[in-house]
């Protein structure tokens, strides 16, 4: 085999590999990015915020908001979330019926290809139920979002002042 033939085979092989790589499942599909995750300040059930002594608070709650961007060419779906700061984490949506605000659990949130879904006050939000610690302005914590195709995506959430 001459050098020219070897180079031709190598070039063809490289081209083939490049084509295979471009067409591989990992290169296409959903590409999820979480933008500006934030949560409301809240007190844990032990009510230790501020002066520090106990009290009856029940299952204290907070809500997390963010924007999910899918820059890929395939849709995905958010199907759940977990966090160490709460006993339960659920996907909820506030729906207005007239001037009545209703809380509705949402089993999954579709994320369209090359699109985005906004989690915002009075709309979709991740509910933190049964807070294990206070969430004070400036605190951060980890929230792991679970996607149907993209798997788990941990994000760092910052506790912010009310921003109505």
């Amino acid at each position: 085999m001459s050098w020219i033939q070897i180079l031709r085979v190598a070039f063809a092989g490289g081209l083939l590999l490049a084509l295979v790589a471009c067409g591989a499942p990992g290169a296409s599909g959903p590409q999820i990015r979480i933008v500006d995750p934030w949560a409301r300040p809240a007190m844990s059930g032990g009510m230790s915020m501020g002066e520090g002594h106990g009290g009856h608070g029940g299952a204290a709650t907070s809500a997390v908001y963010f924007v999910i961007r899918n820059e890929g060419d395939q849709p995905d779906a958010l199907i759940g979330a977990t966090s160490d700061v709460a006993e339960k984490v659920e996907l909820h949506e506030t729906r207005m019926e007239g001037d009545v605000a209703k809380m509705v659990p949402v089993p999954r949130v579709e994320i369209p290809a090359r699109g985005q879904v906004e989690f915002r006050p009075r709309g979709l939000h991740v509910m933190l139920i049964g807070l294990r610690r206070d969430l004070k302005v400036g605190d951060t914590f980890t929230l792991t979002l679970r996607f149907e195709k993209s798997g788990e995506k941990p994000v760092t959430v910052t506790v912010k002042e009310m921003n109505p």
Partner: protein
Amino acid sequence: MPRGFWLGVGIGLLLVAAAGAVKIALDARAESLPVYMTVPDWPFTDQEGRTFWLGQTRGKVVVLGMIYTHCPDVCPLITARMRELQEQVAAEGLSDQVFFVTITFDPERDTPEVLRRYAQARKVDFTNWAFLTGDPSTIRHLTEALGIYTERVYVINGTPAATPGASAGAATYFINHTDRLFLVDRQGRVRALLPGSRTELPEAMEKIRRLVRERPASSVPLPMDVALRSSF
């Protein structure tokens, strides 16, 4: 000049003055806010555990909201709107004429201490703001009187339910509720309904200023003024 001329001028001036007075009266009437109902003078408990009669606020313009502290989404916005109004009222030098009242519709969980810490976490100024809880039946009657809809919803394995079912001990409930704020005049009458968490600051302040400008029901200092001064 003939006498009749001056008489005519005088009558003309009187007519102009009368027309002006009528126009001012009609304008004032057109500007006045409607009267919806009178807020009942019932007893509640404030964030310090003290008895607080709603009648204590007579003589002041009141911004009244109903919330529950376990509400993660809408009620924090209602409180944030009220805090914005409180800051604006202070900026305009009206803090001694406008009082803020937040009442829970979840008295089982919202004790005075819970309410106090909820308010403190949101940097509320208690000088002219009370957070109230109370007897569940009194609160239920107040929500009915004000037209506030509430519906307790339990979430069991991701599904809403009207009852806690078998998991009563650990069941968490939320409350579907009306998103509304009330502006109450110095005589304790509801004069404006605002859209709660969606309240626009300029519109609300314009109505608050209008109620502040209204003549007080009595020029004599009211007992509630004394009570408020001694309480805060």
